[in-house]
């Protein structure tokens, strides 16, 4: 099963990170990533640039509204993620707790949905099956 480790940090956490020597941060992250690669569990992972460079698309109104920067009321910023493929929730927790993060940082751990989470008798999948059957019958005529 796959889990996403979602990195979030408060403003204080982000500031604390900026005080650390860049080399040290890179080395710690590199080692962490390497340990997950060598254990065969890391499926994907990305870090994100400063939230100030980003923008938000708001769907509250009829027409989606784009505003610069992070969303106003956010208490914590989303900074990056890892996706690990492991055998249990506890294994995901163990990997998450090994991340080189400090005070003000959080990892939210969420299971990634798979095809098995969606019913095979979904309307669209039913339709697809119907189309296939019709096509097959036409082919035989």
């Amino acid at each position, binding site marked *: 099963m796959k889990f996403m480790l979602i990195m979030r940090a408060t403003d204080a956490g982000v500031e604390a990170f900026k005080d650390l020597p860049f080399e040290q941060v890179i080395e710690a992250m590199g080692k962490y990533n390497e340990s997950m690669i*060598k254990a065969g569990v890391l499926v994907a992972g990305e870090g994100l640039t400063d939230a100030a460079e980003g923008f938000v698309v708001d769907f509250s109104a009829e027409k989606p509204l784009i505003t610069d920067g992070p969303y106003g009321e956010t208490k914590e910023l989303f900074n990056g993620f890892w996706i690990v*493929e492991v*055998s*249990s929730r*506890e294994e995901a927790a*163990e990997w998450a707790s090994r991340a080189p993060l400090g005070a003000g940082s959080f990892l939210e751990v969420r299971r990634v949905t798979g*095809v*098995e989470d969606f019913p095979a008798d979904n309307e669209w999948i039913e339709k*697809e099956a119907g189309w296939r059957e019709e096509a097959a019958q036409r082919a035989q005529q």
Partner: protein
Amino acid sequence: MDASANSETARSAPDDGSAERAVAAVWRIESARIVGALTRIVGDFGLAEDLAQEALVDALRQWPVDGVPRNAGAWLTAVAKRKAIDGWRRAERLDARVALLAHDLEREQAEAPDLPWDPDAVDDDVLRLIFIACHPVLSREAQVALTLRVVGGLSSEEIARAFLVPTATVQQRIVRAKKTLAAAHAPFEVPPREEHTERLGAILGVLYLIFNEAHAASSGPDWMRPELSDEAVRLARVLAALMPREPEVHGLLALMELTAARFAARVDRNGDPVLLADQDRRRWDRGRITRGRASLATADALGRGRGAYCLQAAIAECHAVAASVGDTDWDRIVLLYEALGRIAPSPVVELNRAAAVAMATGPASALRIVDRLGESGALRGYHLLPATRGELLRRLGREEEARSEFLVAAGLAGNDRERSLLERKALGAEK
């Protein structure tokens, strides 16, 4: 036994069995490194495995009470080392090795309790461990059990459940395997260059067997066992990280990812098998396809040509990138099967080549290949031979013969789900 080494506790442990599961999780992550390091230190793979298991028992007793230590792998290794020293003291073998081990243990705890692993040494240990678990003096069954247990960190119960055998059988296999390795004086080493291809071939064979056992259970009620296939993929990733210059390791990983990408589409909502032609390709796992293709590209980029696993991965890639059976590049698949049949001749490959020829050229020429195979007797008792023959005969309009072939195939199928699919096919031919 005092096991307080490095017992800084970081996480509290609610009393609901979650601590036991947390121990199992740590074990999955750390067991290969622990057993590997211990084998190097005590010089005996069997003893190292016993010590590691004893340390695990201590952890299962202590962690639910005290919490999981912050550096759990180091804790387990330290406990195992102390048990080694105690054992030798009891046996009055107070030789230089005991002194060295005791010294190591003290120094480690004094100097760097949080940094016990020298990454390069650990990598070498894990690679040696994989080689010894798949040593050619062992039977294939023993190699599989040992690999899952010491490299994968699975319990004997988990292995037994996965292979539908009693736990005692797995335990016996492991005990016997350790005795065999000791009797053969199997060295704990990465084999010399000249033995590399053959020894690596054995490892890849073991991993692929674990994967295949998972995705087409040859007996019993279940068609697939995804947990086991995930473990095989994980072990292949571990090996790819340890041996990045070996194209066939990446080829095997690519083959597994590309095959596993189709798992969700291989059964319908009743759990019955769905043939490739009828699969809903939107249910294929795009992430796995991307990763599989990337691994195959990594193998190709090494510039040493394609071996048997890379060729099979390339065939799986042809399916993975096609929008439908009709859009599939069957000519290319036939070529790839021809190449595969030359470097790794096998009647099963020949049968698959026939199925590809049927799509590329037509059922008549494919039937000639299948009939030659049938006459050779090489696949006697293999249900997919009459099943394939049945498909070809049906396409040629020879319904009566097709029906009887499907019935023969159904009688030979070991898997309940496959049998019922074949029986339905036999009925379908009656129309």
